[in-house]
């Protein structure tokens, strides 16, 4: 230490690399982890939406199958037919509730069964041909399919 003078004043700057290194470590860790969380979150979100979509498709096809069975039974019978199906579909799809609605399609004897989940917002349409008119809507879960001569086959909550 033979040279005091100006170098002495820079003593305040010494030993900062530890602190800087620490802050850098924290920052990079935070950025990496948030990146991981965001990517993971959106991946899970995508998967969930895909799961809901495929579940709604499967349930839609079951609904269409049941409507087809009902249509077949009604067509093979006279107008004085009474027919009631009580069906249990899953109440929720990947944790989200959903609604089943039947809409008139443009084609003759063609109807759309629209299943829509609320969160995530997914809706799936399955078309069905039926000589018996179809109508009605119901929440997922217990559903009743009923025939009456005036309205045809109507679906409703059980």
């Amino acid at each position, binding site marked *: 230490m033979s040279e005091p003078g100006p170098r002495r004043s820079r003593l305040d700057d010494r030993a900062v690399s*530890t602190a800087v290194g*620490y802050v850098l470590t*924290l920052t990079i*860790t*935070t950025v990496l*982890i948030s990146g*991981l*969380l965001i990517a*993971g*979150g959106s*991946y*899970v979100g995508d*998967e*969930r939406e*895909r*799961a809901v979509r*495929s*579940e709604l498709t*499967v349930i839609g*096809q*079951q609904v269409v*199958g*049941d409507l087809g*069975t*009902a249509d*077949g*039974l009604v067509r*093979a*019978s*006279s*107008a*004085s*037919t*009474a*027919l*009631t*199906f*009580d*069906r*249990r579909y*899953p109440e929720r*799809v*990947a*944790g989200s509730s959903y609604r089943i609605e039947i809409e008139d399609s443009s084609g003759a004897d063609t109807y759309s069964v629209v299943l829509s989940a609320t969160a995530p917002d997914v809706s799936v349409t399955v078309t069905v041909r039926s000589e018996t008119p179809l109508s009605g809507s119901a929440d997922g879960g217990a559903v009743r399919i009923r025939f009456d001569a005036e309205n045809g086959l109507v679906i409703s909550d059980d």
Partner: protein
Amino acid sequence: MAYLSDGDDRGQLILVAAIALAVLFVGLAVVLNSVIYTENIASRSSTFSGDAGPSTYRGEVDRAVDGVIADANAADANDSARTARVAAGVAQLDDALRRYYAASGVSTNVSLAGPGTGGVIDGTAIEQGADAAFTEPESGAPDWTVARDVRMRAFAVTVDRDSLRDAGDPNPFTVVVVANDSAAEWRITLTRESVEGAAMTNVTVSSPGGETETCVASGSRSDVAVTAGRVDGAPCDALDFFERTVGPDGGPGTYDVRFENATSNGSPTADGQYRLVVDATGGFDANYGYESDAVSASNVVYGVRVRIGYYAPDVRYETVFRVAPGEPDV
């Protein structure tokens, strides 16, 4: 490093992040699970009893009542005895099916529709049981109406090939079926033809649209089952013309049946037998003069209207339908 001296406080950021990621993965596992569950329910057959139950039951009743009708027609010539036999047969069937279905927790019933035995539809079997020309039984007219405004079942014509006219003859024997609601007319002509030295019977059907289709049979006698759509037991698409029409009472539509050119130039154009069951009674003797030896018109049961009920925990099905064995399958 004084402010970092407490080692227990270190790594909190990593810890929190690890917990968050763990929750994320649990969520992912739940979602994937529900996908697997979905694929499972998508691929397994439905356990829903409505899928097969009511239609199977209906089919069983249909087939069994066919047998009941055939039995009653074969056993009794007397109208009321026949009807009683049908009623007893249906009651027995109800009992048997009720026991069978009760074992799987389903309650069923089948009965004749209508008050009492009102579900029995009386009919007439018109039959030429021995080989003869297809002329009007009494007057011998070559063009005549066999039955008018009727539903028919089990309509079959059996002809001797050698008695038929050659293909190309202007006046071959023709069976004409007319649908009453649309006035559509199908003409079934029977001719013979020699193909490479082998004699064949041609069954040619001209449809209202003008198209013609031909089915060929090789036997020396040909059995043309018109309502069943078969020639010598083999399916014949040309005969598959009965349409799904609805008559005024909700049953199938009605038809007229005529024979034309049963004779031509003074000689028969076909020799053979025919049989059909129509859903009309009485009037035949007066209208068409069936009191001849060759052609008989006897009262039979044409069909039956039955009421069925099928009650499972998740299905309720009640309906009335008609059973008429051998009616065109449309």
